[in-house]
């Protein structure tokens, strides 16, 4: 058990593909955060969310702290703050729960998401 990675335990790329619609639908339906996704092309968003999920699932990704900062700068200017990051992490958790992930794994995903919080909020 210990020699499998978080990404493998969650189901790898298939899990990302299964999770992306559920996750993004939750985000878009949530009035507390959906304003930050206004006017963004859906195909591009789905691609971006796949990249994000791959990262927080512990998979191979090319995200750098700099990308995170650049990518969210304009949203921070529009008021993006800790409460929004909390909501995203909450939706991540409930998405994984729906897909039958174990509690420990969900905690680990939340921890990875938390680790980029300062970059996302440009602090």
């Amino acid at each position, binding site marked *: 058990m210990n020699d499998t990675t978080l990404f493998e335990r969650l189901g790898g790329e298939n899990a990302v593909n299964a999770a992306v*619609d559920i996750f993004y*639908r939750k985000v*878009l*339906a949530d009035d507390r955060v959906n304003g930050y996704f206004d006017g963004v*092309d*859906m195909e591009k968003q789905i691609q971006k969310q796949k990249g994000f999920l791959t990262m927080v699932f512990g998979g191979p990704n090319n995200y750098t702290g700099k990308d995170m900062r650049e990518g969210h700068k304009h949203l921070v200017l529009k008021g993006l703050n800790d409460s929004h990051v909390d909501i995203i992490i909450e939706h991540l958790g409930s998405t994984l729960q729906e897909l039958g992930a174990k509690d420990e794994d969900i905690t680990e995903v939340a921890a990875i998401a938390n680790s980029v919080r300062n970059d996302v909020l440009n602090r």
Partner: protein
Amino acid sequence: MSSITLNKQSYTVEDNDSVLDTLLKNGVDYPHSCKIGTCQSCLTKLVDGTVSSESQHGLKPTLVAQNYFLACQCNPENNIVIARANENAVSTPSKIIKLSHLNANVLCVRLSIDNPNLFKAGQYINLVASDSLVRSYSIADIQSNYLELHVKLIPNGLMSHWLSTVAKIGTAAHIRGPLGECFYYNTDNETFPIVLAGTGTGLAPLIGIAQDALAHKHQGEIILIHGGVDETDLYLHDTLCAIQKAHSNFTYAPCVLHKSNGIEQASIDKILIKNLCGIMHEVQLFICGPTETTNKMKTEAFLAGVPSASIHSDAFITLKS
């Protein structure tokens, strides 16, 4: 600071300006439309220097191999020498063989082609009127010797003006492409339902895809929803009614915003969601047309439960002034 050289003239790139911004600021009449890397009308050849791989994103490998890039997506970090796209290398010569009105503000444009197998109905081409005027149009119909486009005439639009006053039967033009992933695809002969929705000339790719599905004897249901402000916008009403009569699995669902006799008065996103009811998980959904309605319908269909991978769409992104 880097510079751009075009036709022996050099221009200094300011701040974070793209190659396209720099040329336009200096008064160069350079082809462009969307400015976000979608339409490819700003296709440019790199003669000397280097450009980022992002500025080649979405280009066909043959264009990348010839050092083409998109001027609107390139922020040069060093001095570069560029040239306008060489139409002989990147496009097919064509002639206008038909120009007629489908209603007061929609033109039917037929362009001659030699090889119909290159194109799929629903994809889009770039119509090149001159070395500074290029616009994207979706393919409504493909016959052995021509492509058909439906063009909405925009007051003060450059291509609108060219098509309605300069172009005649026999006028030469070039066709670049095709581009895009919005077409009928069913290699395993499955019977999934197809729903197509769009307003205005968004109908062009949609009728192309629907006719292609019917030509392939698609067995599932096909529902085409066309929306307009009033009845005059439903520019293929009779044709679509006739297709419905001829094919038991084809339904034409028109809707308009203004009150009308016999045509449902409702916004198109409402009609779309109604028609998706019960088939969310099986449907292949095609949405095309003006950007705002297209994006709205995409989001609503997705939120209602249609998987993102089943939504195929081209938004008609236009020039930002």
